[in-house]
Structures are given as C-alpha cells and as structure tokens.
C-alpha cells in the first residue's frame, strides 16, 4: 500500500467501500451462494429415487419387524462389554504407566503404542480367527467374548492415556495430605486420587464410549450367525435381501438415537466442569 501521498490526495470515497460495507457485501454473497447450492440440489436430485431407496415405507416396516430390537441389543451388548474391559484394563495400564517400577512403565507404554497404532478391524479379525492356529483355545461367551476382548483391548490403549492424564491432574498435595494422615500409598490412590481422577475423566471416557458404539459395527467381518448381528450387519444383510438402502438408513438413525444424547451429555458435563473450576 502506498502511504506517501495519502495526506494530499483526497480518499477515493466513491470507488472504495468502507470495511464495514465490504463485510456486509461479503455476507450477502455467502448467503447467495448457499441459496444457489440448495436450489441446485433440490432441482437436480431425483427425490423419488431417494425416497424409494432410502425411505421406502415397506422396507422400513420390514426392518423394524425382522429383528431390529435384537440388533440394537447386540450393538449395546458388544459396546458395553468392550467398554468395561477397556476401562478395567485402561485403569491398570494407567497405574502401570505411573508406576515406580520401570518394567511396568515400559510394558504399559508398549501395549498402549502397539494397540493405538493398529486398526481396530485388524485386531478384531485376529481375535476372531485365533481358534484356527489354536484349536484348543475357547474364548467364553462367543461371539460376545471375542468382540469384548478385541474391541476392549483396543479401547484400553486409548482409555489408559485418558485416565493417566486424569490421575496426573490430581495435585501432589492431595497425595501428601492422604499420606500424612497415615494412609498407605494404595489407600491414598483408592480413596483420594482415583475418585478425583475419574471425575475429570468421565467426559472424555463418554466420548470413548461413543467411539466404541460406532466401532462395534466392525463386528460384521466376523462370521457371526444371525442371532449375533448388530445394527450395521443387520442393516446390510436386510439391504441385500430387499435391494434397498432403507435398512441401512434405519440402522444409521438408530446409531444417532444412541450417540446424540451421549454427545449432548458430554457437552453438559464439560460445561459444568468449566464452571466449577
């Protein structure tokens, strides 16, 4: 920008917009673009085809009546089981990461890095086929046990890091106060550190639960009989039968029905924690 002659030549008022006028004009352009795109969509999309394949009334009915309830139940069962295993393992791993015994720290770190670096799909696949190289091996509660272990172990790696951060967020003075009252290191951890750490960690762990709900869809690669179908597998199979996308749409809405309230809950808890601080 030239600054040499500004004081002498009068500002070209008519050609140049003031910053606020310009911002106003840009805002109008943004609205116009939006309206145009929406109009284009409305005019070009074959709404009839969308309706018949995604929201086919007959198929919706069929989806609801051929065992949607079981699929929802299975999705929740897979998720909750994996979450519990992940939480238990994750807490142990977090404590190991903070241990004063070197090898415990190394093992926990290796575990965490290993399973965070692998796709959950691959881990699940390995657990699903373990009985081929080890015919004697029986995972209890099959197929649930397999899924719980596979997804739970992957989740434990992520949860361990979250829980570790939560434990470290508890100030050193808390442990000192507990110890100075004569508590053992273990009692101080159980009565003072973990309850406070868990409170910090609940919102991120709920996010982990949401991720797990979605990851439970990976179960479809395991050759599971119809009784063990979860939402995605159920929707996909029914979709193949009916040659329609409607069952998958219904399954998708079921996921949202579970995950959206949880997301809302997380946001509420985070807001409350921010206020308390």
């Amino acid at each position, binding site marked *: 920008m030239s600054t040499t002659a500004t004081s002498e030549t009068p500002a070209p008022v008519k050609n140049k917009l003031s910053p606020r006028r310009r911002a106003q004009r840009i805002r109008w352009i943004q609205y116009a673009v939006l309206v145009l795109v929406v109009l284009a969509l409305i005019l070009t999309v074959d709404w009839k085809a969308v309706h018949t394949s995604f929201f086919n009334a007959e198929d919706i009915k069929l989806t609801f009546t051929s065992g949607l309830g079981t699929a929802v139940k299975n999705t929740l069962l897979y998720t909750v089981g994996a979450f519990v295993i992940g939480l238990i393992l994750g807490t142990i791993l977090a404590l190991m990461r903070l241990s004063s015994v070197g090898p415990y720290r190394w093992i926990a770190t290796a575990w965490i890095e290993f399973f965070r670096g692998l796709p959950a799909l691959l881990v699940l696949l390995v657990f699903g086929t373990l009985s081929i190289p080890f015919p004697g091996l029986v995972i209890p509660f099959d197929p649930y046990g397999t899924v719980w272990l596979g997804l739970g172990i992957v989740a434990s790696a992520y949860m361990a890091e979250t829980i570790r951060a939560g434990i470290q967020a508890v100030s050193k003075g808390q442990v000192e*106060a*507990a110890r100075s009252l004569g508590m053992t290191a273990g009692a101080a951890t159980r*009565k003072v550190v973990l309850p406070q750490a868990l409170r910090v960690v609940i919102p991120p762990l709920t996010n982990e639960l949401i991720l797990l709900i979605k990851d439970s869809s990976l179960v479809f690669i395991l050759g599971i009989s119809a009784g063990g179908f979860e939402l995605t597998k159920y929707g996909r199979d029914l979709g193949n039968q009916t040659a329609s996308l409607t069952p998958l749409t219904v399954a998708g809405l079921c996921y949202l029905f579970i995950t959206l309230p949880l997301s809302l809950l997380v946001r509420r808890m985070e807001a409350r924690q921010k206020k308390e601080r």
Partner: protein
Amino acid sequence: MTSTPTRTEAPIVEVTDLHKSFGSNHVLQGLNTTIQQGEVVCVIGPSGSGKSTFLRCINLLEEPTSGSIKVGGEEVTDPDCDIDAIRRNMGMVFQQFNLFPHLSVLENCTVAQTTVLKRSKEEARAKARENLEKVGLSEKADAYPAQLSGGQQQRVAIARALSMDPQLMLFDEPTSALDPELVGDVLSVMRRLASEGMTMFVVTHEMAFAREVADRVIFLDGGYIVEEGDPHQVIGAPREERTKTFLQRVLDPTHVDPGAEDAAYSKRHEGDATSDNVVKPLDTHGHYGGGAGIG
C-alpha cells in the same frame, strides 16, 4: 499413642545433623533440635531458608539426604520403620489446606479414621464432629470444601488432622495462603490447641503468634539454625545480626537501613525476596545464604 515409661524425659522428636539437598542445592545443612511433649516450637526465617523442608522431613514427605530423625524413639529414616504408623500419630496442616474436594467436610475428617485406624463409621463421625466443634465449624459438616472460605478450609484441615488423635501437630505456614482478615480465626484455633497442651511444630511468618504462643523459637536461615531459644528473647532481643535484619524487615517493612540500597530494594519487594537475591549479588549483611526457591 501408647505411653512409654520414659515419656516425660524422652523427646517426641529428636533431629540430629539433618541434611537435605535438592540436586546441587544444599537446603538443610546440619540441623539439630528436639521437641518435648507439650512443647510449641515455632520456626521462623526468610523464604527459601529451608523451614518447610525441615518440617516436611519430620514426617518424611521429604527424604533427608543424611542425618537422623527420631520420632517417639523410632528412627524415621530407617527403611524398616513403619512410616505410616508414625504419620498416624503426627497431624499435618498444609499451606494450601489440601482438603479432599470430592468429600464433604465430615467425610474429610472420617476417611482416614475408617481406613487407617479401622474405626467404625459412627465412632469416626462422632470424633469428626467433636473436632469440627472445636474449630467452630460444626454447622459446615455437610458442606464441600469448595463452598468454604480459605480460613474455614484451613480449620477443617486442622480438624481432619486432630481426628486421628495425633501426638504431635505439624503446621506448614498455615496462614500464608489466607486473606489477611481470615488469619485470625485460624490462629485462635491454634492458640487454643496449644493451651490444651498439644505438642506443635509450626513454620510461620506470624511473629506475634510465635512470640505469644511458642515455648521456643528457631530462626532458620540459609539451611542453618542461626538462633534458637525463648521467643521473647529471639524475637524481642535477637543476638545474631541475621536475626535482627530479618525481624526488622518483617516487623517494620518501612524501615530503611541507612546506606543499604539492596535491603531497601528487597523491602519494597518483600514477597519475592528470594528472586531479588538471585538477581542481585548482595549479602552485605550476610543474610540469605542461598537456597532460593524453596519455601
């Protein structure tokens, strides 16, 4: 604690040649002292002199580098010593209160009783209420620490420590984190405790309290015990030059030493006195041996 036959003669705490270093920072350089049953000992001194470290060594929150600390005749630094058992008999009050924020005031006072002393819930609650009454906060039993003022939190912390029926109470600058108008309540609780015969070891900046309540005052500077004795003597008529300089600054912050530019500068920055000394190579009066940053 179970009484020992030599109770009246043997000191509760016996510190011999206590050294503590943080890396190359030699914070405590050979301290010797004893605390008798029923005695109130106040430790005063500039920030960074090692007062808090000294106190924290007694219940092993800091591990001494060398030297001996005997509590009730037992060597604390001995790896075979049951430190939890010793801490049970020794209450500690922190500068930052360190109440458990997830527990109510009453639960703060009962949690260690039930887990450590295996007292029943009713017994623990009764004991907690008794001590909350003593610190004047029985009506706050169901409140949570975050709902209390700093002074109230510190009184709860005292009640929490007392609920373990300790033989000795350690206070680590209990009023330093408080708003000035809240200091009085905490001090009056401590004063009452002293008058009831509690053995107390207090690190403090409250000179008036030390003079009034202490049986003995220790002036610590640069990791050494510079002066020790009757509070009226140590605070009222100190013998050592370093004690005089320190007390002058604390008791009369507006006083200016004639010709002592450095001291005047430090006085204006009383709060961050140690950092001043890091920047300025002073020591014209020989105060502040070092140990900056420990308090």
